[in-house]
């Protein structure tokens, strides 16, 4: 039995994986493939399904609503991803200093993550409420504004307002991942530099950042995917308004399918989303890998 670690046939492995793979195959993979296929049909709820090739994608080219929603989607995804990773990194660095009460801080910071997305939306709706919201209350009392601002219906403020709420909900995730990465950096690396008399900043630039790169790349990639696919919080906050200004791609696809019944077109939007995410991630990760090799 000394070859214990080497009895590694693929059938043996498959047997162990099977209990997990069967439900995945049934409830994730098969519906997914079917869903991708629907993107190439004219399927409208209540009608028979007919293959229509690329007709959905041709329509998309001249669909102003589609273009607008992808534009907003990009702004949202890039800003939220960048802000959440930057702030998450900052928070993780602070937590990693292990001052007193760090475990309390580390627990508290998880609050937004623990909240259901629907409730995250509800909470921020109450913060932004023009009459009863804390934000207007404080700003008016401080004399910064004189008229109540309707944050979620105003063309000027709605995008920043929604982005703040979005970043808020995503910071903990980023911080937890980055913190895990920070804690796995071997301590002796720092000691070596400290002997050389390097300052904090140098330490950060020459050791922390390079050692964190793989983790950061993973966080950025995952966040990018999750943010591009956001639905719940924006749905509760604005339902895509005002003027369709916050209609993220997922909201647009949802409306197509469940409001108007154009399932085929909704699936086509879904397919384009997958394509876009894959392309962006592919090029991002390639650059990352190249830099790492150098």
């Amino acid at each position: 039995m000394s070859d214990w670690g080497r009895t590694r046939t693929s059938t043996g492995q498959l047997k162990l994986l099977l209990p997990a793979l069967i439900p995945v195959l049934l409830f994730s993979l098969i519906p997914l493939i079917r869903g991708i296929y629907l993107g190439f049909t004219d399927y409208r709820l209540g009608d028979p399904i007919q293959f229509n090739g690329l007709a959905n994608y041709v329509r998309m080219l001249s669909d102003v609503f589609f273009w607008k929603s992808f534009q907003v989607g990009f702004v949202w995804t890039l800003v939220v991803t960048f802000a959440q990773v930057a702030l998450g990194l900052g928070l993780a660095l602070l937590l990693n200093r292990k001052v007193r009460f760090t475990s309390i801080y580390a627990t508290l910071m998880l609050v937004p993550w623990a909240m259901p997305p629907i409730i995250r939306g509800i909470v921020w709706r109450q913060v932004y409420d023009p009459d009863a919201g804390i934000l207007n209350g404080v700003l008016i009392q401080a004399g910064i504004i004189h008229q109540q601002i309707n944050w979620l219906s105003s063309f000027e403020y709605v995008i920043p307002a929604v982005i703040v709420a979005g970043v808020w909900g995503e910071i903990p995730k980023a911080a937890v991942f980055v913190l895990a990465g920070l804690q796995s950096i071997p301590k002796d690396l720092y000691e070596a530099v400290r002997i050389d008399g390097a300052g904090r900043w140098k330490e950060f630039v020459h050791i922390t950042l390079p050692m964190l790169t793989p983790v950061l790349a993973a966080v950025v990639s995952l966040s990018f995917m999750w943010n591009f696919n956001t639905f719940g919080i924006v749905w509760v906050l604005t339902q895509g308004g005002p003027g369709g200004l916050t209609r993220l791609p997922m909201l647009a696809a949802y409306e197509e399918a469940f409001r108007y019944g154009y399932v085929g077109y909704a699936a086509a939007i879904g397919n384009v989303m997958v394509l876009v995410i894959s392309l962006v991630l592919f090029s991002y990760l390639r650059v990352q890998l190249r830099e790492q090799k150098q």
Partner: protein
Amino acid sequence: MKTRTFIADLLTHAGLILFMIFLVFPLVWMIATSFRPTAEIYSGTVALLPESPSLDHYRTIFLEQKIFTSMGNSFIVGICSTLIAVLIALPGAYALARYSTRWNNVVLGWILGSQIFPVILVMIPLYILLRSMALTDSLIGLTLVYVVWALPFVLWMLHGYVRTVPLDIEEAAAIDGASRSQIIFRIVAPLLLPAIGASVLFAFVSAWNEFFFALVLMKDPNLMTLQVELARFTGMEGQARTGPLAAASVLATVPSVVLFGFLQKWFSSGLIAGAVKN
């Protein structure tokens, strides 16, 4: 040197407190709102603590809504899907960590790939599939969906952790005549407790928080989950609703926040293993 560390610590605390205010305050505000009478909510004054706290809104939601039923449903679905997900993920994670065949790439590829696809692609085909199996409008159907929903993360986290378990422990057990399944469940699993804790937490919270699948799959009012039940409130305009909505939201948030608090330690160490050992 000492004063420098002191100042640095002070600044760290200041930074952390700023973060905490931003991260926790909206919840605090909602809790405060849930105890304010309606007139006070709309009075336009800014105060953290309610002037005349009342439990009216909590009373309202317990009387009016099927909050208890839906909470019960959420608990059942959450616990069952968590148990099943972790039990079937354990051998899978073990297999991923201890074997290296082409299946590794397939499964790890799926774990990452599953994050790319928007739910909308899966939703309608899944609905039709479950319907044909008579599993819509059924807590079993919803549980199965949530198992699959949680699996990528659980598998990933557990397999990262299995790698940290030294092989010689297993070899010793094998020499003593233990079978593969005994090794997984009796030897390896106990060593994985932190990761299992984190997985349990994650799977439960993601089921508890999930909204979209439940919204589409469940039609029977007696089988609604808490999130869907709560979403009803947001559809109802008018100032009389703000308070009850806050109260219901507080109730829905408490279980996940408490769980996060309990399992926080396990969670971060579990993530380290999952995130970094790859």
